[in-house]
């Protein structure tokens, strides 16, 4: 069952002062995996909780499946939520944890058991049904939380940074499993994270949030290649996009597009800059070059990322001619940070 979640003009203020969510309009697709991405305090978790019904909006509407659900308690919204800490009931076994939501639906014991076992089987935890949460590993707990969410046949899955409590190695495989799981089930999913790698890997679309507002919504490639403002540009991508002043604009280019002039080919113009390299880092086969370029009267720090295929020798404390191809340049207004029309750059 795939429904559409819609948020219209949503605002949530705390104590009249803190504007956690400051006017958000968002519509998911059916069965879509939408990621809410942003730094701490940007409002993504508050937005999620408002959709869940754990918070009531100060202004605006939440619609699930076309109906306005403002004022409806969480359990009436047919949603399921997985929390950062998984929120498993510590005094109940895995089986009891999974069947807990089913009791509200007045299913008989037999039916509850069957459903729970189906969900457990789907997530590969059938052998853990008699254990208590404190005897489970992080990954196992996450699966129990998912099974508990699954069992309700929800119309929407809400996930609040469920991977942050796993150690780095586990996170990659968990991410993969999560994505496959969602594609199997087909339920509309809204996923909150501050980790842009996770967002890029999981989302069908990413909504980048900052200071209570959505800055840009779009598929990962779009958000990466065509950021709507300087915040998105510098938040997405590791290392972040370089921003250099030029007149009343900021010119942005990604580190992997900032290469030795000789290597930058292609028809059309390219923008050359003298790049003074301070430091070279070797990371996973790439070389990260840290240095400065002149911008107006000052020098701006930039980073270049040379893939292993570029073998040009580079030494620290030396200046080289680097360039960016015109098609990789992005232009932003210096004051507002918003994306503006491109200007030709003379080489």
């Amino acid at each position: 069952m795939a429904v559409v979640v819609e948020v219209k003009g949503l605002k949530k203020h705390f104590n009249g002062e803190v504007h956690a969510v400051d006017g958000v309009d968002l519509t998911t697709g059916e069965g879509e995996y939408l990621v809410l991405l942003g730094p701490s305090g940007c409002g993504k978790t508050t937005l999620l909780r408002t959709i869940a019904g754990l918070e009531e909006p100060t202004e605006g509407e939440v619609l699930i499946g076309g109906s306005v659900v403002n004022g409806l308690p969480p359990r009436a919204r047919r949603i399921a939520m997985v929390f950062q800490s998984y929120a498993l009931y510590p005094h109940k076994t895995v089986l009891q944890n999974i069947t807990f939501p089913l009791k509200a639906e007045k299913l008989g014991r037999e039916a509850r058991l069957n459903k729970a076992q189906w969900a457990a089987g789907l997530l590969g935890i059938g052998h853990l049904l008699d254990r208590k949460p404190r005897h489970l590993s992080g990954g196992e707990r996450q699966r129990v939380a998912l099974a508990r969410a699954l069992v309700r046949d929800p119309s929407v899955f809400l996930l609040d940074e469920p991977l942050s409590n796993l150690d780095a190695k586990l996170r990659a495989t968990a991410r993969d499993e999560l994505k496959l799981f969602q594609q199997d089930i087909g339920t509309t999913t809204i996923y909150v994270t501050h980790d842009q790698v996770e967002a890029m890997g999981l989302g069908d679309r990413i909504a980048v949030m900052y200071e209570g507002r959505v800055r840009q919504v779009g598929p990962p490639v779009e958000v990466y290649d065509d950021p709507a403002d300087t915040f998105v540009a510098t938040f997405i991508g590791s290392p972040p996009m370089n921003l250099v002043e030029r007149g009343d604009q900021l010119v942005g280019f990604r580190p992997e597009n900032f290469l030795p002039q000789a290597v930058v080919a292609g028809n059309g113009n390219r923008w050359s800059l003298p790049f003074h390299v301070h430091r070279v880092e070797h990371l996973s086969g790439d070389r990260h070059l840290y240095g400065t370029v002149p911008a107006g009267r000052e020098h701006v720090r930039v980073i270049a990322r040379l893939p292993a295929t570029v073998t040009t020798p580079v030494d620290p404390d030396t200046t080289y001619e680097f360039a960016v191809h015109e098609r990789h340049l992005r232009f932003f207004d210096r004051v507002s940070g918003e994306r503006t029309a491109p200007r030709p750059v003379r080489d």
Partner: protein
Amino acid sequence: MALQRERVEPGTAGRKPEWERAGGVRAGVRPTLADREGVLAPLFLLPAVAYIVALVAIPFLLAIAFSFSDVTAGDPSFDWVGLRNYRRIFQDPVFWQSLRNTFVFTVVSMALTVVLAKALAMVLVADFRGKWVVRFLVLLPWTTPVALATIVWLYLLDSLYSPIDWMLRQIGLLDGNVFWLGRPGLAMVSVVLVHTWRIVPLAAVIIMAGLVAIPDEINDAAAIDGAGFWRKLTEVTLPLTMPVIAVAALLGAILTFTDMTVVYVLTRGGPTNATQVLPSWAFIRGIVGADLAQGAAIALFLFPLLLAAAVAILRAVRRMEVL
């Protein structure tokens, strides 16, 4: 690294300790007693431990000794009399009455307390306007000195002046007076009432701490999982706060059965020892009656109860779920 030039004490001229000559760090600073942790730990503890041993452990042992003696305030000489005091106590119906009362009062008070305190704790945890005022008022029974709080009740339960009787008369439920403290059954009810009234705030505060310790996300999950008020209460909140409730109940029990003030001020144990409890009886025998030996013997019967309760508390604390 410059060496500090110390003033050479007369008589020590020429004698510089090795580590100073070596010219190392901070010459002139020697490890003193103030550093030696192996010594510091017991040293810091010593005053408190010595004091407690002197004024608690020793008197405790003394009490045991006294119970086997014939010490009175008038004749402080110590003579062994074996089990004579105990035999006398066992033959005294008032003793058995006190023992029974101690149990009954404690159990009934705690049963009432647990239910009322749990409800009160849930109220105090919620957010509402005037919360601070409510909290202040609700804590009054506990924070007021026992004797004074009991005095307030003494007036409320007085056979002539009782405002409670007056209110009941106004409503028409009553004709004449209820002798709250004059009739044995009612006197017992009164004592239990005052104990419960005093202890509920304390128990509520303890239970509050337990309620607050439940992570918010678990409450949120229960809301999402469809648990209404009662289901959440019985299936999530109560199981998770059980250990804390047990601690509160046990602590309250200890405070109730070791308390002599309420009974002493309210009824002096009357009418005719109907509300006598072990502590107040021990006091009346031991201090008022000046028979220290008997007083000690009676009081000592509290000890096994205490021990049982203490062990139970420790077990409950250990069982607090790792949340």
